[in-house]
């Protein structure tokens, strides 16, 4: 009898051990997945911080595109044969390459934007009149770059490889001569999108996201604060107020893509606002984050003890004065926290932006709220859809920056909440 009892108790205890074990395993699984996600993306992405460059000396005849007093003539500089100039100089490094076909292959190991890049370098330097020889570093092509980073192994059969044996030989020869090497990839931070991975950067997307979020916060924050104050202090309990509440709670759970559809049919086709513009993107994301901020703001207003408000009312302050002078300033940290979380959500959002055309290929850094733009997550989406390996690593690096930034935003929110968490 006693032994039975003991066994019974032991088996009851075992259930508990098992439950604990499931719980721990679940948490470890989640943490493991987080680690896998971040590490795999990190390993993929860190190499994009570098880019393969080659050193080359190129003769230029500045008199062909500068005026007498040394100013660059806009129309002439664009007509100058930059591609040819760079290619001819590059050909000189490999004098044995003669035939048209071979030369074409040779030029494929350097960036097809070399001519343009060289032109931009020339524009920035003040040149002597007449012929000069410039020594510059220019980008190798993305395939050569991936080969140098060891991402394209020689073990793969040649026909499945994006870079041929001959091209590998040329690249190796450049490396041997110490005129090709991996250097810090400045382009990634200073350029907008491009068809060529070696000329593509995130600046366009970063500016696009910044413009979009500016609209989002200008739109959502005032509306959310005003709506929250109304609902907390002025709304008479009744059907209208209930209906507003139900709507806000539901909107918080509506799939984000539906907001994209709303933007497409209301902002684009009814109001005729421009496609792909940060203005529209910001409004759509603003509508999307509005419920998040309202819910946070109301919670924060409610956490202010009513005695503060009563004190103000007892002194003859009106309801509005009590709310604006006392409650709102005290609720500000909570409102800020909610806003940061809402903005983080908006910054990471992709689907609604696809609907309103912010998925376009745009090579300029956007300059206004109505110019065509893209955003960080959309850029990541587009790059990971491309065929070139070199875009994968750029996509990963972009993710690292985006996620890093989001984590910082969330940390600020957490710290803010901790710091201002007042026990009344």
């Amino acid at each position: 009898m006693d032994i039975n009892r003991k066994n019974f108790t032991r088996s009851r205890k075992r259930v508990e051990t098992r439950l604990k074990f499931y719980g721990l395993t679940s948490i470890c699984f989640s943490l493991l997945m987080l680690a896998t996600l971040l590490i795999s993306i990190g390993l993929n992405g860190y190499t994009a911080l570098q880019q393969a460059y080659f050193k080359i000396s190129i003769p230029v005849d500045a008199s062909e595109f500068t005026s007498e007093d040394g100013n660059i003539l806009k129309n002439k500089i664009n007509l100058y044969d930059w591609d040819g100039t760079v290619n001819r100089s590059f050909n000189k490094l490999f004098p044995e390459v003669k035939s048209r076909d071979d030369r074409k292959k040779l030029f494929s190991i350097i960036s097809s934007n070399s001519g343009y890049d060289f032109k931009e370098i020339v524009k920035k330097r003040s040149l002597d009149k007449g012929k000069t020889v410039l020594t510059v570093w220019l980008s190798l092509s993305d395939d050569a770059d991936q080969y140098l980073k060891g991402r394209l192994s020689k073990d793969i059969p040649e026909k499945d490889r994006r870079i041929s044996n001959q091209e590998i030989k040329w690249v190796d020869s450049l490396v041997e001569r110490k005129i090709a090497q991996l250097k810090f990839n400045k382009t990634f931070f200073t350029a907008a999108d491009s068809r060529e991975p070696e000329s593509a950067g995130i600046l366009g997307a970063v500016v696009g996201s910044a413009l979009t979020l500016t609209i989002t916060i200008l739109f959502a924050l005032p509306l959310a604060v005003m709506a929250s104050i109304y609902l907390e202090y002025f709304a008479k309990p009744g059907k209208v107020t209930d209906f507003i509440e139900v709507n806000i709670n539901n909107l918080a759970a509506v799939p984000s893509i539906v907001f994209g559809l709303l933007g497409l049919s209301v902002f684009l086709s009814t109001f005729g606002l421009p496609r792909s513009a940060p203005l529209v993107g910001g409004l759509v994301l603003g509508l999307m984050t509005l419920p998040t901020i309202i819910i946070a703001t109301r919670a924060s207003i409610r956490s202010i003890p009513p005695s503060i408000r009563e004190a103000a009312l007892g002194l003859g302050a009106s309801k509005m004065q009590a709310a604006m002078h006392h409650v709102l300033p005290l609720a500000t940290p909570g409102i800020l926290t909610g806003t940061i979380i809402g903005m983080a959500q908006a910054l990471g959002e992709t689907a609604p932006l696809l609907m309103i055309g912010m998925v376009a290929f745009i090579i300029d850094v956007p300059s206004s709220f109505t110019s065509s733009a893209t955003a960080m997550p959309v850029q990541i989406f587009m790059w990971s859809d491309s065929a070139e390996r070199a875009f994968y690593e750029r996509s990963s690096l972009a993710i690292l920056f985006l996620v890093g930034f989001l984590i910082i935003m969330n940390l600020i929110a957490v710290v803010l909440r901790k710091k201002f968490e007042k026990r009344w």
Partner: protein
Amino acid sequence: MFTLPLSFVFVILVGVSLFFFYFSKKSIVQKSAQIGQRSKTLSTYYGQNAFLWSFIPSCLILILISLAGPNYVDQIFFARVQELNPKFNDSFISLILSKVINVANGKIGTDDQKILTLANEYKIATEKLYFYRGLVVILCASMLGLLVSYLQKPKTNARDKVETFIINLFFISAVIAILTTASIILSLLFEALKFFNLYNFFEFLFGLHWAPNVAIRTDQVASDGSFGMIPVLAGTLLVSFIAMCVAIPVGLYSAIYLAEFAAPKIRDYIKPTLEILAGIPTVVYGYFAALTAAPFFRDVGGSIGLSVSSESALAAGAVMGIMIIPFISSLSDDVIRAVPQSLRDGSMGLGATKAETIYRVILPAALPGLVGAVLLAVSRAIGETMIVVMAAGLSAKLTANPLDSVTTVTVQIVSLLTGDTEFDDIKTLSAFGLGLALFFFTLILNVIALTVSRRLSERYE
């Protein structure tokens, strides 16, 4: 005529309104000095009243004209282009019109004399519009400001007026939530109805075949593409089901451990870490699913002799599940912790173990909240877009095999609406049909979830 850009008009408007703020404030002080009586409220409220009346209505007019004006000019010129040659079809006219606009803005050049003339007129018309916009806005601001300043007497209760104005503004802000929902429903319904004009509603709802690849010709008969949403819906449910298989057990057990077993210190670290998982953008999960998880499942499947599609529902679903874990765990954690301590004490006091208390007392008590959390998570999974766009397939198959490739509602919406599609194309319209279905599906889940969990919180209040 000189141009009046938006920013300039806005600055002037602010200036005019500020002027009336100070003007009203000063004039009320003078007026009350004249009759030797203190003004009923602080003088600043008289200023605020004038400012609000001068600024807000004019600001609304400014926004309205800026939104509708250019559209109106475009419409006029659309007709003008049409006059050039009545045989042009609409899309060709749009093309010419955009060329005219680009020429007018100096973005491109042209040799075509007709376009040049039109562009010139377009430029003048736009400048005229901007000029009148500025004029109307400034006039409106000045007149209202002047009127209000004139009407205010020291015995006017300006504070009351300002507050009523602001409360009405607040009310309108709150109503935006209703307007948003209404415009979602109306816009989806409007476009979807156009679709159902072209395509049978019941065939859409119950059709077993989804192949929206209508040829590009404009004289195409709609029936050539088929839009039966069942396979798309089935794909959505399959992916969501896989996601739930991952997220529900992991999320629930994590929540139980965190709420009932974990030391407070450990909890303080693990909770924010899990929240990082929740804060990662979905496009990142999509990237992970497409480039890491899908090849992994394919290779593992291949090594044990299973053929796994490289766009398998399994990969998309599993990664989506990982995304939803923190969602379920944090909602459930809140629900479990909301169960009153007295229930725990009661059970433990009877000699129950912690596990028995959890299984027999806490979980049943928290059940409505947990159901609510799971329903919200399902709604989230169904509406999730980026993971499936990047990792799931495009072809609609009616299958329950998780190793096969399936498509989902959101994937179809994205693929139908990205790229340069005509707005009245049947493909575009079908996307709104899907959007409407998606909205109602998730709406029902959300309403049930919110109602169920509200019951819980009422029970323990």
